[in-house]
Structures are given as C-alpha cells and as structure tokens.
C-alpha cells in the first residue's frame, strides 16, 4: 500500500529567478488520495503543474515507479498516465461529450454514431449520468468535471490531479464528486487533490501535505490532522479570532437594524431573477445565501445598475426613499451604491495600473469634470492611507496590482470601492480566492463597516462565512428570496434546507 507511484526529490522551480517552489520532496502512494493545501502563492499550482508536465522543474528529479521520469508536455504526461483536471475545465464547448472524451484519438474518418455508442458504454461503466450527445457548453459545472474525469480515465490515467475541483460545485454536486473520487480510489487510481476548503481535505484524503511560501511544511496521515493544525501549518501562526470558529465571533451580539436603506419589490429580470423582494438596513450585515444559479449576483447587480431589470413588470427598487432605476453603474455609484465584484480579474481591477492608480480611480470615478487635473501625488497620498487602513501587503503604492497575491488584490478592489464613500456596499463572494490570513482581515473589515453604520450586503456560497458575518440572512432559490432568518435562529441545516427545497 505504501509504495510510491510518483515521487519528487528536491524539486525547485524558478520563474525568472524567483523560486515558486523550493526543494520539495513529495511522494504519492499507490491508490491514495493526497490533499495538497496551502495559502495563495504557496506553490500548490506550480507543484501540480510540474506533475502534469505543464512546467519543467529547474532542478530536482521526478520519479515514477522508482524510475526517472521526464515530462516534456501535458500530452506526454497524459501518455504516461498522469492527468490533470484544471480549475477551468479544458473541454471544447462546441463539441459533444463523446467527441470531447475521444478528442485526439480520431481517425481520419470519424464515425460519430460509433463514437456515441462507445462513449455511452464507457460513461455507464463509470456510472456517470451524462448524455454523450449533449454539447459540453450546455452542461453544468459538475457534469463538465465528470467529462474531464472520464477523459482522464479513458487515457488510463493512474494519477489524476484535481485543481480546486469543488470551487464551482453545488453541495449536491460535491457529494457526487466525493463519491466519484472514492470510486476512482477503489480502482487503484492515485489522486492529488488541491483545495481551499479544509473540511473537504479532511473528509476525503488519506494524507495531507501542507506547503507554505514554496516550501514543504508537513506531510502526514489525515487522521493526525484537524482544522486547527492545518491552519497553523498553512499560515505558520495561530490566527487570533479563530476563522469561522466556535469562538467569540459566533456569539457576538446581533446588530440592530438601522434605517431601511434599500427596499426591493417584485424585481424581475428574464428568467434569472423572478419577482424577488427584500429590504436592506443600515448598520448591519445582510447575508445572501443560495446555491450557484440562484440569481443572487444578478439581483444585486440590478440594484447596482450593472444589469437592467425588465422594462415592463420589472418591479421597484427604492433606495433611501427614492424610486430608482439605474441604467448604468455610474449613477448608482454616485448615489452611494457600490458593488465589489466576485471576479476581480474580469471586472475588479485595472491590471496595467499600480495599486495607487487603481484605488485612486475609484475616487476619480465619483467626479464629473472631465478636464480637471489629476495629481499623481494626491493619488499616492490617498492610496497610501487606504493601503495602511486595509493593511495591503506591498512595498509601496507603485507596485503593480498583478504582482500581488489574491488576498491583497481583493483588498485593493475593496479600497477602490470604499474610497467612493458608499452608503450601501455589496460584497459578492468577498473571500473567493483569498488566503486564510486575508480572509480574517476582510471579515474584520466587513464587520467594522457595519459598525460604522453602512448598509452591508454579503453574497456568499460558503455557509460558515454567511453564518459568521451576517446579522440577517436572506436565502435565495431560483431567482427569488425564499426565506429570511435572524442569525440567532439560523443554523446550517435550516439554511441549507431553505436553499435546496
């Protein structure tokens, strides 16, 4: 059982002279599930990409079955039995499931009917319920993952590497996924499993390796670990105010609702948001929970002006006692509604700009005169204030934002929003792709904002986060708010029940 199928010895990988991982020793045993944990930038992705042949180690050796192994390309790795299932799935969206599974094996003349039958049998043998004739673009996240896994199994992969496989899955899909991993394990496949969710790693893996700053910290059997120990290994210190813990956070007093800042009645947008109604009060955190696709982001984007609600029978949005219908976010921003995006790379920051310019852009956006003079000194001074307030870890404001870690990027995006002096601030998945240390800080910040009397909305798919932060919890399902709970009466079972049924 304990024989190593894949081994790394003293592997170092440098990018332009900067080591991403340093002299790592890593063994993957035959038929085990090995979880790889660490903060952002700890080197998990780099390590797994070396295993998958995407990157080549700068120094050190790879061994497979005790023989030296050289992986020139991902295709070569696949050929040798190592498959990687990436975070963003690597499927061709315009092709069918069957075509994707057999991609690269086509003969000169490709008979689709035969392919479909073959794929059907193959998928059945894996116990996957996916229609081989369906287009991949029409599948949900979990099904796409099944197709990827089927492809890996089809290539007789002995080792499958999953990079954050559960990030986009609903709880039900996660359950399927876990069963699948266990089944693969029974078939003797070795699995490397990268995750941010520690519970999943604890529940699923046989062994856990923790990386920190590109270095190996600890590898041990899962039964010797608990949450606390893992976090300590990941950040190298014990976090004050235990993250999502059972400590003081959970028992703090519920904030009393202040003024009714926002009232939403019967708002609809197509088939995504359907007749939803709710209110948001100042001086407290309103948590929005729901499964992926429940229309939470869309609902709040309507309020922030980023989406438009239906022209007819689109409902009513009342902000600070005034009926509003924003066609563009600009008007909402100037009225004091600010939306902090869930995908900072796509709609959060300006990648060619420095930290200072990014933060200052938020300030500039609130002004109107296009010809007013912009002083870079003022920008830097203003940014420095926020960098200090939010504890952004960077050398100075001139550092480029893409050089920062996910957590620090998120802080910059939040600073850019806060500089606009919002009355209502909407955080959409504020800690997605953010390391453990920064999560604590961002949560602290959100609580501070609510204490200062701002109306705060937090959208999250992560139950402990919702439970930890919110004073009131709204639960969305299929485009509308179906349940409202006070945090005192809420518990995970109740919330989940409302979100699913």
């Amino acid at each position, binding site marked *: 059982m304990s024989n190593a199928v894949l081994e790394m010895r003293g592997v170092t990988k440098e990018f332009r002279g900067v080591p991403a991982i340093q002299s790592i020793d890593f063994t993957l045993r035959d038929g085990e599930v090995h979880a790889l944990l660490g903060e952002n930038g700890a080197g998990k992705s780099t390590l797994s990409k070396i295993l998958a042949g995407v990157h080549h180690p700068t120094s050190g050796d790879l061994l497979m079955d005790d023989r030296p192994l050289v992986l020139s390309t991902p295709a070569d790795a696949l050929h040798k039995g190592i498959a990687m299932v990436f975070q963003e799935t690597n499927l061709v969206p315009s092709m069918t499931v069957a075509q994707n599974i057999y991609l690269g094996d086509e003969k000169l003349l490709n008979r689709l009917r035969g392919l479909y039958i073959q794929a059907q049998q193959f998928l059945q043998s894996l116990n996957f319920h996916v229609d081989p004739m369906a287009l991949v673009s029409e599948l949900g996240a979990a099904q796409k993952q099944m197709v990827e896994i089927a492809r890996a199994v089809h290539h007789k992969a002995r080792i499958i590497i999953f990079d954050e496989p559960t990030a986009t899955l609903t709880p039900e899909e996660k359950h399927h996924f876990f069963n699948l991993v266990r089944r693969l394990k029974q078939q003797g496949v070795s699995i490397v499993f990268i995750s941010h969710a520690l519970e999943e790693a604890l529940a699923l893996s046989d062994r856990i390796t923790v990386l920190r700053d590109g270095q190996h910290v600890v590898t041990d059997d899962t039964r010797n670990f608990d949450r606390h120990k893992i976090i300590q290994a990941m950040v190298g210190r014990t976090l004050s105010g235990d993250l999502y813990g059972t400590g003081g956070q959970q028992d703090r007093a519920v904030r009393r609702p202040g003024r009714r800042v926002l009232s939403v009645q019967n708002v609809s947008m197509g088939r995504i948001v359907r007749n939803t109604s709710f209110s948001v009060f100042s001086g407290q955190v309103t948590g929005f929970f729901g499964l992926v696709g429940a229309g939470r982001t869309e609902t709040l984007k309507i309020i922030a002006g980023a989406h438009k609600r239906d022209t007819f029978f689109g409902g009513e949005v009342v902000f600070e006692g005034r009926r509003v219908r924003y066609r563009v976010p600009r008007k909402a921003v100037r009225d004091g509604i600010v939306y902090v995006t869930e995908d900072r790379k796509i709609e959060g920051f300006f*990648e060619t700009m420095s930290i200072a310019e990014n933060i200052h852009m938020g300030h500039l956006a609130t002004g109107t005169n296009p010809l007013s003079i912009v002083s870079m000194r003022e920008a830097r001074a203003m940014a420095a204030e926020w960098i200090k307030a939010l504890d952004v870890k960077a050398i100075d404001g001139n550092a480029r934002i893409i050089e*920062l870690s996910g957590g620090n990027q998120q802080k910059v995006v939040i600073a850019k929003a806060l500089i606009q002096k919002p009355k209502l601030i909407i955080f959409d998945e504020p800690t997605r792709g953010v390391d453990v240390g920064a999560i604590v800080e961002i949560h602290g910040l959100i609580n501070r904002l609510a204490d200062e009397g701002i109306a705060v909305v937090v959208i999250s798919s992560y139950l402990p986060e919702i439970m930890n932060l919110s004073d009131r919890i709204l639960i969305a399902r299929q485009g509308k708010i179906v349940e409202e709970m006070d945090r005192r009466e809420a518990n995970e079972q109740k919330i989940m029940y409302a979100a699913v049924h």
Partner: protein
Amino acid sequence: MRTMRLTQEGVVFLIALVLFVGFAITLTDFVSPGNLMTLLRSVAILGILGLGMGLVVVGRGIDLSMVAVMVVAVSWAIVIGQTEIGFATGILAGLIFCILTGLVVGVLVAYAEVPAIFTTLAMGSIVYGIGRSLFFTLDVQNVPPGNEWFAFLGRGTILGIPMAIIAFGIVAAVLHLVLRKTRFGRFIYASGDNPQAARIAGLPYRPLLVTQYVVSSCIAYVAGLVMAASVSGMNTRIFNSTMIYDVLLVVVLGGIGLAGGRGGVRNVIVGTLLVGVLLNGMTIMNISLTYQNLIKSVILLMAILIDTLLNPRDEQTSQQGDI
C-alpha cells in the same frame, strides 16, 4: 525592479536611429536640407494621424475611418472656400462634419455595441461615398488663391521649424497633457485596460467612447488641414492608398498595445520617426511601392517579435493572484 529593461519603445527608437545613420551614410541626398524638410513634413502628417489613432487604441478601440474623414472634410472645406461663402466658413463646416462623423461612429460603437473595427471600416467608405457624391466631384481640390494665412500653416516656418512639425508638436503636447493629467485621460486608460471594471467602478464608459471617436476624427481633420496647406490642395485618392495602415503601423510599432490601456504619446512619436525615416529612405532608393509595403510589414512583424522576446508573457506572472 526598475532596471534598464529595453521596451519596445526603446527598441524602435534604436532601429530608427540606426536606419537614419545608415541612410545618411549610404544615400547622398538623404541629409540634404530639402529632403529633411520633406521627411519631417510627411512624418508630421502621419504623426498627427497617429496621435488620434493612438488615443483610440489606448481606449481599446481602432479608427479606420480617419483617412476618409480627413480627405472628405478638408475637400469639403476647400470646395466651400471656392464659392463666395468663404474659406474660413468652409473650414468651420469641415470641423462640424468631423464632429458629426465622430459622433456617429462613437454612438455606433458605444451604444449599438458594433465592434469598432467594423464600424470604422464601413464608416470610412460611407464618408468617402458621401463626399464623392455630394460634396465634390474632382479627384483633387485646390485651395482657393488668396489665402496666404492658410499656406503659412503648411509651408511657413517659425524659427526655422516648419509649421507642420509645430502643429504635430502642439497636438502631441496637448494630447500628452490630456492623457496623463486629466480625469478624461485617466478614464481612457482605465476603460482601455478593463472596460467591465471601468463600468462597475462608475466611469461614464459610453460617453467616454463617443468622445474618443470625436477627438480622433477632429485630430484627423487637423492632419488634413496641415496636408492641404502644405501642398495647396487635397488629393482625395489617398483614401485608396495604404495610409491608414501606415498610421496603424506607427501606433503598433511605437508600442501601444492593441489590447488597450498601454502606451502614450511618446510611443506615437517614436513610431512616427521610424516609419517616416523608413518611408523616406525607401522612396529615395527608388524602391517600388509593392516592395515598400512588403518591407513595412516585415518590420511590423519583427517589432512585435522582438517585443515578445524582451517581455515574455510568462504564464506564471500573467496568472499572479489567480487562485
């Protein structure tokens, strides 16, 4: 971090310098005062157009209608000037025409969300068609006699510097200040860098786009006036030449990435110098237009290649903070 890294801008400047020295040594007429004047003047017009194009490209757009707008607006101004209405009024009419064209392009791009490349490509032909059918019938319009002040704009000098160069300098300086120092300029960079983020952050994204195209077509008009002044007329056939691609070459060679949000006036100036020296040198060497185009394209490809080699798109650095 800030070491002496060669940027595309620097590389292009070096190439321009090497070419200039090379031509100066090998071609006898190259450094003659007459030729240098021609070089600078032709470069100036290309440069002014490049500035307009540069602005739009920084904002993640492209304006292929610039040459058409320039040709038609200036021709119309001249045609009006030939009647009793007067040349000054004609110039005003041309300006209004440019603003209107810019507005139409901008509204189509910003509000109808037609990709800029198609909008401006079509608008170029439409504008030229309107001009040919409604404003003028001759291929070449001559500036009406008796407008000495206008001729000065093209052929005059101040302290020995041709007016064309001065015009280029003024447009460059103004644009530089606008881009670097005003809210409008910062907004252009932001919306070129990431349009969605700009929108969410509350920038007036669509009005910004419209303004860009209005400004670029006004800059094209300035270039056209300088051109008409220096040769006392406007040859409408240049609409059919490869001029718009030369302008694009200036912008891309100078290092303003077509992805938007990068570069500035300096890049346009450097690109203009290279393209100007190159075109002039090749013309003196009597290289046929076909070969000139071939050489230009190869140089464009090389510039992009060198840039990729010097500033590699490292997967790890481009994905920083991804997970």
